[in-house]
């Protein structure tokens, strides 16, 4: 999933400084799963913003909605009547950064992001998420025991660890596993240690934003 986290309240309040009525839009996709921008978080942020404005003695109304997704135009359309008829001065999106971009494309009101989109990752445990993918556009994890050296090695090395690997940990932080230690252990468990002697050629990064913004087209899916 895309993992995100809420911006500091002060930063969001600065964005909302001039408005009296806003639409706060959550997303039921990835950001619900990583507890950053689902229905619950929309309620919490709305309440926090109202408290902050009451403290300043300012009038402030928040309309709360959470859409199925914010990365598909048909769901964005569901808030059209509110934005166009209810005197909405600004939209605050709690989706990953795709959401506010879709909202901004559709509506002629200022759109603000309430979240910082951090990475593509997964849950390690309740309340803890880690990065597992950098969307390099050419997956190679099968060569490395199912562990991604691009995202999980701090240096994205392809041919073994650097000198900063010690006791299974990375030199950048003793809490960060050395991906190459993990790869070694995994290959050993799979009985494929010999494969580690193979030299992996220089990776072709042309699929990784080399040509600017990327696009996937499925002709069979087009209407």
């Amino acid at each position, binding site marked *: 999933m895309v993992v995100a986290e809420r911006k*500091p*309240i*002060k930063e969001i309040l600065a964005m909302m400084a001039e408005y009296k009525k806003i639409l706060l839009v959550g997303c039921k996709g990835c950001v619900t799963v990583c507890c950053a921008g689902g229905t*619950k978080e929309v*309620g*919490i942020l709305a*309440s*926090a913003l*109202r*408290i*902050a404005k*009451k*403290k300043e*003695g300012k009038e402030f109304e928040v309309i709360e909605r959470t859409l199925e997704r914010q990365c598909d135009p048909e769901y964005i359309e569901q808030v059209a009547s509110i934005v166009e008829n209810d005197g909405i001065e600004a939209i605050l999106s709690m989706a990953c950064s795709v959401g506010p971009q879709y909202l901004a494309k559709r509506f002629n009101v200022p759109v603000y992001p309430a979240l910082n989109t951090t990475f593509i990752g997964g849950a390690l445990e309740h309340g803890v998420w880690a990065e597992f993918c950098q969307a390099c556009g050419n997956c190679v994890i099968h060569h490395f025991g199912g562990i991604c050296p691009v995202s999980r090695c701090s240096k994205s090395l392809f041919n073994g660890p650097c000198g900063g690997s010690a006791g299974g940990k990375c030199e950048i932080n003793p809490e960060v596993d050395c991906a190459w230690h993990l790869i070694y252990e995994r290959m050993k468990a799979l009985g494929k240690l010999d494969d580690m002697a193979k030299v992996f050629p220089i990776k072709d990064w042309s699929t990784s934003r080399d040509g600017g913004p990327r696009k996937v087209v499925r002709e069979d899916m087009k209407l």
Partner: protein
Amino acid sequence: MDADRKQPEEPKVLAFCCMYCAYAAADMAGSMRLTYPPNVEIILVPCTGRVEIHHILEALENGADGVCVAGCEEGSCHFSVGNLKAKKRVAYVKTLLEELGIDPDRVEMFHISASQGPLFAKVASEMTENIRRLGILKWNKQRG
């Protein structure tokens, strides 16, 4: 005339009380004829684990000057970990309040077993006193 003088406004404290412990303790405090300030209004919850972050925030937003969440003692939650979840949520609300420039002491977590009527009365009194010291929230004044 004294009779016409307006009474100073009193703060409101909302207490989310678990039915298995703190609510029973409040009941016991009553049975024991212990007094505690009428500022404390109790909301019965099946477990403090049911109390969400937005419940606490919305209470402050809509009339409460302080909120306490009173659950079972650690290790004796009827639902195993509801009180521990509540404790973490209260801690989170405190950080949010700090971000908003509001004293985090307005929200507290307490652990009170069903047999501790006197402790409930003490906690209710201390919490009220604390909130009285912090004052009524600006937007709650003249709530009528």
